[in-house]
């Protein structure tokens, strides 16, 4: 892992030295068929930077930018760092990191490169594979503690849907409803989207 990152960093730095003519992404692509190290848009407290990058990219795969903002834009990676750091019990923190490490190992084993360097379609395939296994595991034994990918998906969704863009653009939010109508046609319930709260 460290070696890989070092290689990317070296390439990135080379690209910078070479000026704007050829981007780091382009060089990485030419040399490896993969991508450059993505930027981290916050300073992690709990995760190291490698872990934080994986979490950021994973969150963006789970809830990407479309006509509404993506997970990274609304601060989900930072949120996950905070929750795992401040709200998780030690045992869950350890399980989260172990799961994250295993997830990364799987990326390397399957695609020969870390998750953040994989092609978008490979990243999606990795997440779906991991999700499928986790859902199956929970189905077979409901007492199983939430596997990493489900923790990550839950935190991504929690952070996203409690953010202002998530709550107001993807869902709908009414701070002061002033009334309660219990049983009305969907299209008369605000804009018909799921209520954020």
């Amino acid at each position, binding site marked *: 892992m460290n070696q890989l990152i070092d290689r990317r960093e070296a390439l990135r730095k080379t690209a910078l030295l070479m000026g704007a003519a050829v981007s780091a992404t382009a060089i990485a692509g030419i040399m490896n068929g993969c991508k450059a190290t993505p930027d981290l848009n916050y300073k992690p407290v709990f995760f190291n930077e490698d872990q934080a990058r994986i979490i950021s990219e994973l969150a963006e795969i789970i809830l990407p930018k479309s006509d509404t903002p993506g997970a990274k834009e609304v601060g989900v990676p930072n949120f996950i760092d905070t929750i795992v750091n*401040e709200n998780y019990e030690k045992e869950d923190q350890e399980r989260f990191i172990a799961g994250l490490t295993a997830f990364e190992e799987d990326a390397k084993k399957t695609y020969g490169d870390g998750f953040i360097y994989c092609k978008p379609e490979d990243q999606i395939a990795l997440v779906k594979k991991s999700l499928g296994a986790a859902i199956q595991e929970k189905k077979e034994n409901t007492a199983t503690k939430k596997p990493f990918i489900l923790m990550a998906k839950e935190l991504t969704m929690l952070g996203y849907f*409690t953010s*202002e863009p998530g709550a107001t653009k993807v869902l709908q939010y009414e701070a002061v*409803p002033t009334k309660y109508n219990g049983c*009305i046609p969907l299209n008369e319930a605000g804009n018909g989207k*799921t209520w954020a709260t």
Partner: protein
Amino acid sequence: TGISGGIAAKELTEKGLKTLVLERGRDVKHQEYPTATKDPWELPNANKPTQEDLRKQGVQARTGYTVNQDTKHWFVNDLEHPYTEKEGSRFDWMRGYHVGGRSIMWGRQSYRLSPMDFEANAKDGIAVDWPVRYAEIEPWYDYIEQYVGVSGQAEGLAQLPDGKFLPPMEMNCVELELKKAVKDKFGRAFTIGRTAHATAPLAHSPWRGMCQFRNLCSRGCPYGGYYSSNAGGLISAEKTGNMTLRPNSVVYELIYDEQKEKATGVKVIDGVTGEQTEFYAKVIFLCASTMGSAFIMLNSISNRFPNGFGNDSGELGHNIMDHQLGVGAGGEVEGFEDQYYFGRRANGFYIPRFRNLGKEKRDYLRGFGYQGGGSRQGWGSLVAEMAIGEDLKKMASTPGKWTVGMMGFGEILPNHENFVVINKNKKDIHGLPTLTFDTNLKENEFKMRVDMKNDAVEMLEAAGVKNIYSYDNITGIGLGIHEMGTARMGKDPKTSVLNKWNQVHASKNVFVTDGSFMTSAGCQNPSLTYMAFTARAVDYAVSELKKGNL
């Protein structure tokens, strides 16, 4: 200054008495609720408790809903206010020390006890008979409901008398469907929750607004949409000019005068400075909450009362009751995809007690009611699904399946074996002794839980609910946050602490009107009953005072 103290302050001052109101915690003025108008994204940690919060408030968090970022400041720091549970027993003591007490965070469900509840102990030969019957308290229920404002639907039920209601809140589509099945297939009542929310203007309290359907009640309501001491009784009391409210005044002892054979005042520690003071009064109302009042009385030792104030019977601190919960069922409802709701109703449906009524005899005494609600699922149901990416966004923005659930609130019998004592070995932050609890659910409660689970499943099945799940998570006494019974009222001073007027049998100028007076628990949420008895006790106390009897 909780739900009972607020009413005591209002009634005493409105009847012209100069009243000193001692509150052990900090001051909280109406509308000064720090998180009341915060949007979800303005709360840290997605409103969830951190490990540091749980270290300080681990006991307060036992409910699973009390210690959140928006409400944790209303609950005590357990490290500063410890208590002890005797080995093998559990007691969940959720409390907040501030002006308004738990009237800020209460569940607001407001039900009357019924004639059969007041007769139950005598009929069953359990504990002691209530010295009061429904007819005596009925006008006081009327009075209190009109003051606090209770929204509800009249149903004409013997086991759950109607009140003076403000307009009821609406049920949603699946609740209406369930109501029909419960009524048609079981002949059971099913009503909208009766709740202390202003669903119409309250002419007598023009400073209170109406419920805005935000469902953020336990943060404190800046609109005064629901009743709290802060928005209600304390403002009424303030307006008389007769109230002096003194926060940070921790009452820890009643002062007893052997010559006069009554209490002359109370001892107080200042919660901030630690300074000790005494205050004197002609009449004392203890409204310190069930365990708070039990503590003060157990801690008031004199030659006359070597075992605690007014404790000639040996019942002080005993007969602790609550409502047992944590048992019920839920499931998914098919259809109604094209229907939804607008607004957040801080209320649910209520299925009044139907067991052991009339001639029916189960293998346990008394009964239970259900509180529940229906709603459409949000994004949470999509976590353990395959969807990711834009699909996930689309699915999350479409309201999910309808679900419906209900949880039982069951009566706990008064039992001398459920009790609390003073613990001199463990001190709180003020250096005062603390409490040790020895309480557990007993056989009658466990038998009742079987029905509480099965009946819920049966009703959901009959309504065609799918994927039904049921649960029975045994809880400690106290988790219902309806603790009561530590200074029960009764006819005989040998077996009870208070008489029918909430008056200490052996010290006529002391009245105890929080939940400690309860002789039995019923299965109805009790705050309305505390308020009604408080108003009645003040009326009696003032008339006795005028007659020179106190």
